[in-house]
Every structure is written in C-alpha cells, then in structure tokens.
C-alpha cells in the first residue's frame, strides 16, 4: 500500500468456489482475479448463475473460497476462522441487501446500532453514532420508527446507515434496488454515489443495467468467469436525474420491461 496513490483495497487471485451437488461438482467461481482500488464505484453484473452472488459472499467474508487468495485492505482473509471472519465483516464491510433485512419490531436507530453492539461499543456512544448515520441518510426524524412504519426506500436508507455505522472499508450492496420502485431506486443510487464521492468504496451486485450505469467500473461475469472489466468514463448522475422531473417515467418503463 505504501507509496501508492490509490491503494488496492480488494485483491483476489484465482478465487475459486466449488459446490458438491450430488455426484456433480459445480464451479460457481472459477479462478477470479480482480483488484479494486479504494474509492472505486464498481458494479458486478451477470445473469443468475454467473457466480456474481458467490463472488459477493467471498468478498463479504460470508464464505470461504475453495481455492485462491483474497486480500482485503492488506490482510489475507481467505483462510480465516469463522469468528475472525465475523470480526472482519463487523469492522470492514457494510452490507446492503435487496430485502433490507431490518429487525422486525425494532426502532430504526436500534437497527443501525446493531453492528456496534457486536463491536463492543458502549451503549451511549452507539446511540450517538447511530443517530449521526441516520442524519447522514436523511432519516434523523424517523429514528424511533419501526421498520413496518417506514417505506421501502426509507428502510433501505436505514440499512445503508447500518452499513456505514462501523466506518467500514467498503459497502457491499446486493441488488440494493431490487425491491424498490424506480424513483426510490434512483434515490438509493444517488445516496450510494454521494457516499462514493465522499471516498467510500462501493461494490454493487446487480443484474440490472439500469443500476450499473451509475458505476464507474463494470465487472461482467458468466459461468463463474470474469468476462469483461469495463471502465465507465461517464457514469450517470442519479441526483441530477432526480432533479429532472421527466426522467423517472422513462426509468420505470425500462425497469418493468
């Protein structure tokens, strides 16, 4: 890392994952080598079964590769024990899921606090930091609302606040707009873009081209292989699109197609 202007945050070499299904061995990921620099906004694309979800599980330290190496922030994490992986997830990775995964009947602020509970942060400090993050995603007013009292977009913003609260190295978003309407999707992408502009590394896994066009780099997967690594010189600005009123209509037509 030392001396480099943009340090490599993610470095994988020959990352492989095989599953045993009956007598067949399925290679979900077949020797993937990628580098992601700090501050990048990357979209991982591919049809279902392409291995993009498996890659996301590997990069998110939710699963261990069958072979290959994964270095996250200068630390080799590909062969850590499960409790060590939990600690890595806790401090280095912020997850955003398609279905938000907020705890039921739990206030937004407490959902945001959850990672800090496992980080062993004292209750008073947890509350301060959680409220700070909720303010950052524009939900300071809704801190005491339960998830059932929030709209889908609001729930996803709570989830983003939860992902940010431990000040992670990267945000891993798995189909973050998959359960949202087009306008709300745009709001979420705008939020992720703003976070990225603030220096946060963002990695979005999606099968929608609509989502990928906001990223500056697009990785395409097919059958467990990386087939295209494409730099998007002019990503769309979600915030600008939100300001232009007519745009959401087009987006919704495309999204439903």
């Amino acid at each position, binding site marked *: 890392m030392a001396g480099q202007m943009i340090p490599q945050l993610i470095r994988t070499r020959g990352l492989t994952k095989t599953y045993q299904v009956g007598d067949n061995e399925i290679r979900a990921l077949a020797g993937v080598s990628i580098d992601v620099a700090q501050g990048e906004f990357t979209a991982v694309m591919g049809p279902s079964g392409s291995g993009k979800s498996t890659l996301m599980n590997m990069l998110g330290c*939710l*699963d261990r590769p069958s072979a290959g190496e994964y270095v996250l922030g200068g630390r080799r994490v590909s062969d850590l024990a499960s409790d060590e992986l*939990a600690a890595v997830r806790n401090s280095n990775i912020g997850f955003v899921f398609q279905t938000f*995964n907020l705890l039921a*009947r739990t206030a937004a602020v407490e959902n945001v606090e959850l990672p800090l509970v496992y980080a062993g942060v004292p209750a008073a400090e947890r509350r301060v930091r959680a409220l700070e993050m909720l303010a950052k995603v524009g939900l300071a007013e809704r801190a005491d609302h339960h998830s059932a009292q929030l709209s889908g977009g609001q729930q996803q913003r709570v989830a983003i606040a939860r992902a940010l609260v431990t000040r992670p190295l990267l945000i891993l978003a798995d189909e973050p707009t998959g359960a949202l309407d087009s306008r709300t999707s745009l709001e979420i992408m705008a939020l992720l873009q703003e976070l990225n502009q603030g220096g946060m590394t963002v990695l979005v896994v999606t099968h929608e081209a609509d989502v990928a066009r906001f990223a500056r780099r697009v990785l395409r997967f097919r059958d467990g292989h990386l087939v295209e690594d494409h730099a998007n010189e002019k990503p769309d600005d979600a915030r600008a699109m939100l300001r232009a009123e007519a745009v959401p209509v087009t987006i919704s037509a495309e999204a439903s197609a």
Partner: protein
Amino acid sequence: MLGLLRVAMRALAVNKLRSLLTMLGIIIGVAAVIVMIAVGAGAQARVEEQIRSLGSNLLLILSGSTTAGGVRMGFGSNLTISEDDAAAIPREIPETMAAPALRGTAQLIWGNQNWSTVIFGVTPEYIDVRQWELAAGRMFDATDIAGATKVCLVGQTVARQLFGGADPLGQVIRVRRVPFTVIGVLESKGQSMMGSDQDDLILMPISTARKRVLGASNLAKQRSVGTIWVKVAEGYDMKTAEEQVRSLLRQRHRLQPGQDDDFSLRNLEEVAATQEASSRVLALLLAAVASVSLVVGGIGIMNIMLVSVTERTREIGLRMAVGARTRDILGQFLVEAVTLSLIGGLAGIAIGIATAVGIAQFAGWRIVLSPESVLLAVAFAFTIGVFFGFYPARKAARLNPVEALRFE
C-alpha cells in the same frame, strides 16, 4: 449481558401468547414442585412432632407373655418385670431414668357424669420420663407413693368429658367406687402416631393403683408391673443403653445364656427413625413426580426455541453478516431460553406458594414452605433453560451466514 437480556425480552415480547404458553409447562412444573415439597415437608414435620411428643430417647420394657394350655398370651400377660427392676436400672446405669407403670381400665364417676378411661399407676418420675407437661396443679410425690394416697391427675380428654367446663382441680371422682382427689391436669399431647388419643387417661400413684383400684385383677407378684419406661440422657448412645438395660434385666431375672428374654425391650429411636425415613421417602417421591412435569416443560421450551430459530433464520444471518460471532448467537438464544424458563419459574413459585397456602387453608393440611425449596425451584428452572435451550441455540450459532441470509 444486560443487552442480551433486553434483546431476549424483546424477542419474547414479540410473541407474547406463544411465550406464555411455552412458560406454562415450567410454571406448572415449578408450582407442582413447590406444592409437593411443601406438602411433603409438612407431613414430615408432623411425623417429627409426633415422635418428639413420644420422646425418641426412650426405651420401653414390656413384661413377657404367659402360655396357658398351649395358648400364648401377649406381652404383659405374665408380669415378669417389677418396680424393683425399675429402681435398679438408674442405680446401675446412671445415664438413665426409669418409670414403672401399671395399666388398667376403669369407669370414672363425677356427679352424674361417667367416663371409661385408662388408668396408669405410676411413680412421680413418670411425667419426666415421658416428657409430659402439667396444665394445672401438681404431680404427686414420694409421700403419696409411700402413703398410697387417693389422688390422681387427669388428661385433657377426661377433663373435658367428665367435668365439661368445670375446673377439675380439687374435685373428687370415683374410680371403681374409690374416691380420688384430682390434684393435677395434664397438658394435651394430641394423637399418637398410631392415632390413639394420648389425653384419654388418668395417672395415680402406683401403690394406690395396686392396692385400691387394680387389686382385683391378675397381680400375682406384689411388686410386678406391665411396663417400664426408661429415659436415656441426651447424648448417650441409645444402642449402648439398650444393651446395658437388657443385660441388667437378664442378670436380675437369672436368665442363662441362650435362654430367651422374659421381657420385651423396644428402642423408640428406631421406631422414630423408621417413621421419619418413610415420610422422607414419601416427600422425595412427591418431588420426583413433580419434577417430571418440569422436564416436560423443558422439552416445551426446546420445541419453541427450535421453531423460533427456524423462523428467525434470516435475522440470524443478518446478525452474522454485521459481525455476530458464534458465541454471540449462542448467547442470545441461550439467554432467551433461560429468560423464558426463569420468568416461568418465578411465576411458578408465586402460583406454587399460593396453592400451598390454599391447601393449608382449605384442606387443613400441614405445609412447610422453605426458602430452600424456592431456591431449588429457581435453580431447576435455570438448569432447564440452559439444558433445553442449548441445542436450539447451538443450531442457530452453527448456521451458515450465506444460507441463513438466503433462507425464505
């Protein structure tokens, strides 16, 4: 820890009805244990009290039996022991006190009332040996024995049946036509272990009983008695005392080695120990039966916790994704199970105590509520929570985060 408790309370509050139904098993189990222990301990206390009223440091010597034309009579039919034996026992074994007694029955008459009761001709030591208290008046003394005076003490039942509300002291009653002055009233002793009334009797000097009242019955030897009670000093070994008394009597009766005793010697401590043991077994049995329901309650907790783990698979996956370690998840579900069982346990204690008190009030049973039984119940509830909560909690903690997050 406090945080875990709050998480557990919230999880339980989400499904109030289900939590309550789950607790029901523990509530009933703990309540049953508390009630059964209270009732069992009550029965045991009753037995112990009866034994105390009898006196457990007592030896009872009964006269031997006679055989008349091949028909063997019971103990006391042949009066082989005497007042002299009774006098010899404390003389030879200083740790003892002996009280001989002659027994008979007679009809008592006072005014226009009459009552049939048991008459004991005894020495002044008798009430000390039997540990009987006087409610009023005095015990007769050596002078009364020497002079064979016509005085007596009456038991509570006799006092009630014969005198009604009147004060028995100083009254003259007729026992087989002989007038006796009542000089004392005995304190109530209640029922014996066998259920006989220990207050339905009168005491009189042994000399008077022999000469005036029981003279007509079979009393071949002038000094012989039916029973001798021997009180052994506190702390002196009952077994030793028993053997000393036995060998003393055998020697006095000139029995050859190998010859049977011509008397019967009973150690009441042994009787008491047997009684106590059987009541303790009963109490233990009751508690054991009740604890079966605790185990059933524990299985109910395990059941619901397993359902809960399955239902909350995604939540577990999320917690793991944001950094929960194996022990965090294990702890969370374990605390939940223990909270469930402890709350159930506390409710069970309350209900158990209320039921036990209710039984005491309405059924009139003797109960003993001890802090130990409450502690035991809490410890039991806690153990059940840990024991039956562990398997579901471990199942949760061992989930694969990827699969848990994908779980529908």
